[in-house]
Structure formats: C-alpha cells, structure tokens
C-alpha cells in the first residue's frame, strides 16, 4: 500500500501526545507490543503499526482503523514496552478522537456496547447486566445471541430484572454532564 504523507504530519503526532500525555516519538518499532497483544490476530493494523502511522501523521488511516476498537485494554503492551510508551492509553485516545471527529465505525458492536453500558450507569448509577445484554442484542439485531446461556443463567438465579438503582442517581448523572467527553453530544 502506498501512503501519502500528510502536510500535518507533526501535528497529528503532537495532538495524540498532547491528548494522551504519552510521548509517541520514543517508539523505535521493536514490535514487542505486538508480540504480546492477545487480539493481534483480529487486527488490521498491529499496535506497533499504529504507533508508526501516528508518527508519520497518517491521521485518516489511524482513526478509521478497527484496531483501537478491538483492543481489549489488557495493558500487556504498556507493561512490556522497553520505551515505556503507554500504548493502551493511546488506544483510548484514538477511540475518543475517532468518535469526536465522526469517523466511520469499523466495529459498531463495540461502540454500541460501550454506549449501552454507560447509559445504564448514567440512568441507574449501577450496571444492570441483564438489561445490558438484552438491549445490546436488540440494538445490534442479534435477537437470539446467547439465548441458551440466558436460560441457564435464569435457572441459576443470575438473571434479574429488578431495578438495582442507587439513591445518588442524580449525583451520577451530574458526573456524566460535567465530564469532558462526547457523551451528551452529536452521535451519542
């Protein structure tokens, strides 16, 4: 693949460094992050490739990559990087930036899951696992996903439809409203 280097090469790298607080320039492409990444098989760009693309300022390539959405936040890369680059933190920054700038979702189910999860906390203060699973299946049109498992869990008394809300739901809602993020705007 031929990449067209962008005039804003430095800017994109600097933006990522600034937003994440991680100096991306120190990565020397040893590949150790990729060697230990559990999800690398499913990724289109490996973690070290993402690092290189950021250094080269290839913003569109990076922000439309499914890689940050597949990252399981296991922190193996961050733990092992000999240059102490916090790659997991960079993956967070990339997800946040991609959402903010409206890049097309390559892993819509992951995005949907995060949104439903956070909505549940925003409304109830706590996560309601049963509702999370049901709403997720409905919203992603997978009506029969995990149905067998659901039946077994029901028999074990682990499915609950009761409202596990807290008294301080208003306090939690206020936290959402005040947090800088992209929760109350645009596509969310």
């Amino acid at each position, binding site marked *: 693949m031929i990449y067209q280097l962008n005039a804003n090469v430095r800017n994109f790298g600097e933006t990522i460094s600034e937003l994440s607080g991680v100096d991306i320039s120190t990565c020397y492409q040893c590949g150790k992050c990729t060697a230990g990444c559990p999800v690398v098989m499913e990724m289109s760009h490996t973690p070290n490739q993402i690092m290189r693309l950021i250094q080269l300022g290839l913003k569109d390539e990076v922000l439309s990559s499914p890689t940050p959405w597949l990252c399981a936040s296991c922190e193996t890369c961050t*733990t092992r990087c000999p240059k102490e680059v916090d790659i997991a933190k960079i993956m*967070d920054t990339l997800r946040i930036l991609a959402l903010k700038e409206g890049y097309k979702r390559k892993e819509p189910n*992951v995005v949907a*899951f995060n949104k439903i999860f956070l909505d549940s*906390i925003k409304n109830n203060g706590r996560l309601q696992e049963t509702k999370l699973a049901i709403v997720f299946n409905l919203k992603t049109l997978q009506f029969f996903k995990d149905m067998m498992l659901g039946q077994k869990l029901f028999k074990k*008394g682990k499915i609950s439809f009761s409202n596990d809300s807290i008294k*301080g739901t208003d306090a939690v809602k206020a936290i959402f409203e005040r947090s800088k993020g992209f929760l109350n705007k645009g596509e969310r």
Partner: protein
Amino acid sequence: MAYGYYPGCSAHGTAKEYDISTRKVCVKLGIQLEDVADWNCCGASPAHATSEELSLALPLRNLALAEKQGLNSIMTTCSACYNRLKVAHETVKESPETLNRINDIVGEPYNKTLKVTHFVNFLFEEVGLEKLKEKVVKPLENVKAACYYGCLLTRPPELVTIDADPENPTIMDGIVEALGAEAPDWSHKTECCGASLALSRTDIVVRLSGEILKAARFADADCIVVACPLCYANLDMRQSQIASRHGVDYSLPILFISELMGIALGVNYDELGIDKHMVSAANMLKEKGLM
C-alpha cells in the same frame, strides 16, 4: 475496625456467589466488612474508552463516599473495579490539579486518605498466610488449582500490581498453598481472556478463553482459581461455546478464590453458592473428598 467493602455490579448478577462466599469467609476470619453506602459503578472499560474525566470521576465518587463514611480502606473483589479505583486514587494523588478538577466533577471532595486494595492482597497483607493456615479445617489435599490472575490485577504494574512480578505473580499461589492445595506453574497466568469484548466480540473471547482452559488442562489442573467476576464469566459461562468451537469439552471448574477458601475453612458447601456455576465443581470436590 471495619474494612470498607466495594462489591461492584457483578456481585448483584453473574458473580453473586463471589460476594456470598467472600462475606462468609470474612466472618470465619473474624474480619468485619462495611459496605460503601450507595456505591456506583466504577465505569469499567467503556468509561475509559469514552472520556478520561468520566473514568476518574466515577470511581472517585466511591472513594469520597467511603471517606465520608469514616472508612480508612476500601477493598473490592473485582479486578476491574480494583483497577479503576486504584488508578483513580494514584492519578489524583500524583496530580493536585487533576484532583481539584475531578473533585469539582464529582461534587464530593476526596482527600486521598484511603488504602485501596483487592481481596487477594487484602488477604495477604491483612490476614497473612500464617493465620490463614491456622484457620484451615479441611486442607485441600490433592487439589491442583491453577491460579489465574488475568490482566487488571497485575497491569499496569506501576499503578495496580498486587505482586512484585507482573509477568509471573505468585501471591494467589501462596494463598492456595496455605489452604493445602497445589498451585502448579503454568503458562497462562496473566494472559487476557478478552474481558471487555464479552458481548461485542464473543468470538474473540471464545478463542482467548479456550487457550487459557487448554493451558490449564495441560498443567493437569483440577480447577482454575480466579479473583475477578469478568474472568470468571468468560472462563465458566463460555465453556459450552468453547467446547462446540474447539471440539474439546474441558469441563474445568472455575472457582473464585473465596469459594476455595470457604471449603478449606469449613463453610458449608451449600452456603457458598458454588452450585450457581455453569460448570459444576461438585464432581471434582467429591473426588477429592471435600464434599
């Protein structure tokens, strides 16, 4: 002095037995737990993937509430909650600017006075292996229990580690051995199970968890011991899917550390909630003369 306890959302759903058995075990050990009143969800991965401020503010509200309640410490049994609480605590401890900003978002001040621990290092530090040994009434002889630490208990090591060695932690192994069981060395102690992708990319979770089960079998383990509801959910509840995909039915019981302790400390099997598991541990326990 009571210890602050933060159960986390899974304690009310898929990991009820972890909560039940933890409370039973603490009674046996003479430890008084006090729940953090009106705790909220820590935000887990979706929060840090969406907004850094949110990912710090949600856990910090719990820390502020615990302080206000007069607690000195907060202990949680969930590795993901522990990770979020500890990262938030350490982050604001290092940066007064961040502390002020997040305190404003939360609306309750946090004064950084709490000790934030996970059940596993709580046992190690507050109870100690010697005392634990003394309390054992039913030693877990001939049980080979592979200790699975997963990601969030050990990484990132400068903020959350419960063990000096993040690549080969042994703290849980020590606890399991104090109970009389054998903790084998094995390859997948800290490999990821896919946790946060459980619903969105179940295929990845099935692959990763399958590899962990395979490694534990290879080490001749009778069961895997976990200290996290998410690890548990993936390793226990996905086993039938793993069986149909890999063609191997591991039928490997996944036990919470508190359940294994409960058995050794003489809590009745029925009171531990172990029968709520998808993969039954009953046969293994009967075989070992523990039930």
